[in-house]
């Protein structure tokens, strides 16, 4: 899909991260590899620390903590909410949806439109697309977009390829219609033929969770222990997919928006790991300093929440200042890859909440 949204804007951004910081060196003994070999990854991959929720925390808790903070600061009134869009991989339950849990927690009006999307790393951009479309029908109210996940509960703690990279977080954006002309360019692509490259094999209707699916095994003979209930990733395939598909999409969206890459203030990308982002910047032909790539080492890859976390951590002051052009892009399960070029500035708020979730 390739489209333009007219007269809409993001008016506020909040990221919510748990206060619990876990250091990489404290986890090296969780893996089957010799600790010395694992510690080498600190330098190679930039592994440093990640933020992990409490055992009792679910995805909606991060969303609720964030929305409560927004309401407490009077950046938004409950009556202004016309829609809630939640993108996540690991919801609290199959039913009710996270959006209904948030709706119920805040006792919102019955005419508030609530919808969940099962999305991974592209969750924030997919939810933005959904939210902007929704605004065409809820012109007098605001749409609240959530991209949240607790991947620490989905990835095996004995999977050295994935666990050190992941983190838990939520990103929240307030969307509204605006009087001033503000075109938002959006592209979303999918290739379902590569759907198995990122997968949680069991837990759904295809393969119900059981004692057998919970058993940890070395499926790939690579020393990483996972169960069928855990996330699996064909890393090499995903890397090649990203490097092949994302650069032409960025070129396409810049052409679509009729701007040069030098006019983009920052490229706020999903944060899989620093190496992949560095190679992506080289392939696109943009300087590293235009692509913040420090989220994995400080917070972990929180799937769909990465872009809001990246924005709040790296460019909060810029986003509260003068309007500038930004390019957002994400890529992940589906496989799906998406980009958006938009003006952002003068946000009512752009902050990071450290939560006790």
């Amino acid at each position: 899909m390739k489209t333009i949204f007219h007269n809409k804007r993001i008016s506020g951004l909040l990221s919510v991260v748990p206060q619990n910081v876990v250091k990489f060196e404290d986890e090296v003994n969780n893996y089957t590899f010799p600790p010395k070999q694992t510690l080498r990854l600190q330098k190679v991959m930039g592994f440093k620390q990640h933020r992990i929720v409490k055992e009792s925390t679910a995805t909606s808790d991060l969303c609720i903590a964030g929305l409560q903070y927004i309401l407490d600061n009077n950046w938004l009134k409950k009556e202004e909410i016309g829609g809630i869009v939640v993108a996540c991989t690991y919801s609290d339950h199959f039913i009710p949806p996270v959006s209904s849990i948030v709706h119920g927690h805040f006792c919102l009006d019955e005419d508030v439109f609530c919808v969940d999307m099962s999305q991974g790393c592209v969750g924030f951009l997919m939810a933005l697309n959904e939210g902007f479309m929704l605004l065409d029908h809820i012109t007098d109210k605001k749409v609240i977009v959530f991209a949240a996940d607790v991947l620490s509960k989905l990835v095996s703690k004995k999977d050295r390829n994935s666990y050190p990279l992941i983190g838990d977080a939520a990103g929240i954006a307030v969307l509204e219609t605006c009087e001033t002309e503000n075109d938002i360019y959006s592209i979303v692509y999918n290739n379902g033929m590569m759907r198995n490259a990122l997968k949680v094999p069991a837990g759904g209707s295809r393969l119900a969770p059981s004692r057998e699916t919970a058993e940890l095994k070395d499926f790939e003979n690579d020393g990483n222990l996972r169960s069928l209930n855990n996330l699996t990733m064909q890393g090499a395939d995903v890397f090649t997919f990203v490097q092949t598909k994302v650069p032409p999409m960025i070129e396409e969206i810049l052409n679509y928006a009729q701007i040069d890459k030098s006019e983009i203030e920052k490229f706020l990308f999903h944060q899989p790991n620093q190496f992949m982002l560095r190679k992506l910047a080289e392939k696109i032909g943009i300087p590293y300093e235009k692509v913040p790539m420090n989220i994995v080492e400080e917070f972990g890859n929180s799937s769909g929440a990465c872009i809001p976390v990246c924005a709040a951590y790296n460019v909060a002051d810029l986003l509260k200042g003068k309007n500038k052009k930004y390019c957002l892009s994400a890529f992940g399960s589906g496989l799906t890859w998406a980009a958006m070029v938009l003006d952002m500035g003068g946000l009512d708020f752009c902050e990071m909440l450290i939560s006790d979730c």
Partner: protein
Amino acid sequence: MNILVGIRPESDFKNSQDFISDGLLDSFDLVALVSELESTYGILIDALDILPENFCNAEAIAKVVVKNGGNIE
């Protein structure tokens, strides 16, 4: 070969025809190897050249370095 030994001192690269299938290098080692080759030869290796088959033996590695502008003389 020194770069490889620096990354995986415990691996016997001299007696392997395929570093990947013999389990001497994993995906993280490839990342380390690419970074080391880039700084040693002052090059940037194209992302689409970062495939296991381009790093499976010394000859393949030399080829990918040369392809990306490195001088291995």
